[in-house]
């Protein structure tokens, strides 16, 4: 049976009809891990036991608590930490017939956009291993792109699913804040963190989201809105108004712009209409996000004192230390109003800005990242690289709306270009639908087939 490149949905179908077994799947992906992980550095930990028959393998970004399995957030502070419990997302996916195959690499504490701040070495971009996969869910994105896993789970706080999905050329979904429970996900920015799926196939993201989503009594910020049947809505007929804001195309690579324009042309042919809208410049979202996220980070990392678990605070590395200190500053006496309070007010403006835009249009399209994947080491040139790379992703995090990255072609360096489709709060249905139809129409320009030639069995 040829497994390479098959979607999670497809494999699940084969598993359910007993045309393939969990044992076979586990062996298959274990073989691929042995073959390619050394080069790519995707997995930090492999689970000891394969799943029970009938279960699908799934890999989680290593900031998800997985009971009995090492969980590090890619930081030596938690080097030998064994999770005492499962995150709600893990528990729900386990109930939906999956097992934990392994934990994937990330920027330590999810601080970054390149996976280079991991204490366990950087993950490489499968398209060009001299480049970064993006971050912070770089391990998950690279694993998905190189098909070391049929699908993976990541988290998006300030673009951490969409950026690596964009640079690795895969589909990555950031759901609405509150759609999916954060309980058990090591907290980075409490009012921003969104667990979400990555895959080569939109239908996989729809299926996984339907298993993950919904109110959780252990997370007071989850929504009690009913969870739509995302799979059923994938094929629905929709004619949408697409909003294009000029401010989201400033300082964007020429080639990236070109590929987005080509994708928009395809969407137009599919019957959707474009409309120019005016939106606040993303630079304000970048600033508000940097202040608020780092404030929350400085608070959330306060529990790591080495007393009850883990190593002491001397094990924090540079990026974590810088973020903690800036966050402490922006919350401190005398500076709170000028930074934290001001950022919260701008947050209110950005939320309003999107509300207004969605009165006019159904989805908003923009590049996910201003460029394609950068070279390893590039991040050192920037004072706050992680946030700066994600300037176009952060508006969605600041306003809480859902956004999905889909691959829209390769640039002249043969690197993936990613396009993000933003939707109304709790309207994952629409952005999944548009993405699914786009995939059906274009097969994402055969990017999957192209890359998997390199990562053959």
């Amino acid at each position, binding site marked *: 049976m040829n497994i390479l490149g098959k979607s999670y949905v497809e494999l699940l179908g084969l598993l359910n009809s007993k045309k393939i077994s969990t044992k076979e799947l586990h062996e298959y992906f274990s073989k691929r891990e042995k073959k390619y992980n050394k080069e790519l550095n995707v997995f930090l930990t492999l689970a000891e036991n394969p799943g029970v028959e009938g279960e699908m393998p799934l890999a989680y970004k290593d900031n998800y608590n997985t009971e009995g399995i090492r969980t590090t957030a890619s930081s030596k502070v938690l080097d030998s930490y064994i999770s005492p419990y499962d995150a709600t997302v893990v528990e729900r996916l386990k109930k939906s017939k999956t097992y934990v195959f392994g934990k994937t690499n990330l920027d330590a504490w999810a601080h970054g956009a390149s996976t280079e701040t991991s204490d366990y070495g950087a993950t490489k971009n499968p398209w060009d291993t001299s480049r970064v996969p993006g971050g912070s869910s770089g391990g998950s994105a690279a694993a998905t792109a190189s098909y070391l896993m049929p699908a993976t789970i990541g988290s998006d706080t300030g673009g951490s699913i969409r950026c690596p999905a964009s640079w690795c050329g895969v589909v990555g979904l950031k759901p609405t804040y509150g759609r999916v429970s954060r309980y058990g996900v090591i907290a980075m920015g409490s009012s921003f963190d969104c667990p979400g799926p990555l895959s080569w196939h939109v239908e996989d993201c729809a299926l996984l989201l339907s298993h993950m989503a919904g109110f959780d009594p252990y997370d007071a*910020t989850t929504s009690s809105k009913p969870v739509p049947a995302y799979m059923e809505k994938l094929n629905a007929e929709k004619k949408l108004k697409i909003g294009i804001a000029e401010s989201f195309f400033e300082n964007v690579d020429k080639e990236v712009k070109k590929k987005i324009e080509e994708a928009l042309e395809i969407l137009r042919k599919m019957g959707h209409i474009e409309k120019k809208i005016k939106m606040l410049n993303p630079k*304000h979202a970048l*600033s508000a996000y940097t202040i608020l996220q780092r404030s929350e980070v400085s608070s959330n990392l306060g529990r790591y004192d080495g*007393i009850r678990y883990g190593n002491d605070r*001397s094990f*924090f590395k540079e990026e974590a*230390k810088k973020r903690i200190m800036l966050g402490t500053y922006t919350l401190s006496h005398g500076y709170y109003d000028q930074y934290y309070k001001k950022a919260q007010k701008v947050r209110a*403006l950005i939320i309003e800005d999107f509300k207004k835009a969605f009165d006019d249009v159904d989805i908003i399209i923009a590049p996910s990242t201003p460029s394609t994947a950068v070279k390893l080491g590039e991040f050192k040139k920037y*004072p*706050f690289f992680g946030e700066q790379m994600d300037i176009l992703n952060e508006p969605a995090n600041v306003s809480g709306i859902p956004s999905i990255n889909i691959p829209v072609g390769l640039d002249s360096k043969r690197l993936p270009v990613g396009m993000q489709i933003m939707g109304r709060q709790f309207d994952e249905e629409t952005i999944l639908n548009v993405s699914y139809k786009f995939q059906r129409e274009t097969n994402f320009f055969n990017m999957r087939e192209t890359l998997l030639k390199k990562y053959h069995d």
Partner: protein
Amino acid sequence: MKNKKTLANEEIKHLAKLSALDLTDEEIEKYGDQLSETLDYVENLNELKTATVKEAHSVTESKDVFFEDGAENKRSLKEEIVFRNSKKTKNSQFVVDRILKS
């Protein structure tokens, strides 16, 4: 000529103390530069008028989320698990170097 750094070394030292982080002199200098640059950038927030805007504490409009007192505790941790990841314990308690009070 380089502008006066927004965050002076003294302030970095103070922040490190508040955050219970130990920094080398080299780190203090280096971080000071980068953090100052970051703070300079976020000044762009002042381009937006917010005098009459109410802060957004959250993106959700949720209110009044509770649990019922006395609900079953499904998350209780057994002793082995409580101490599995800790370095030093004694008489079922976590151990720290003695805290000086007065």
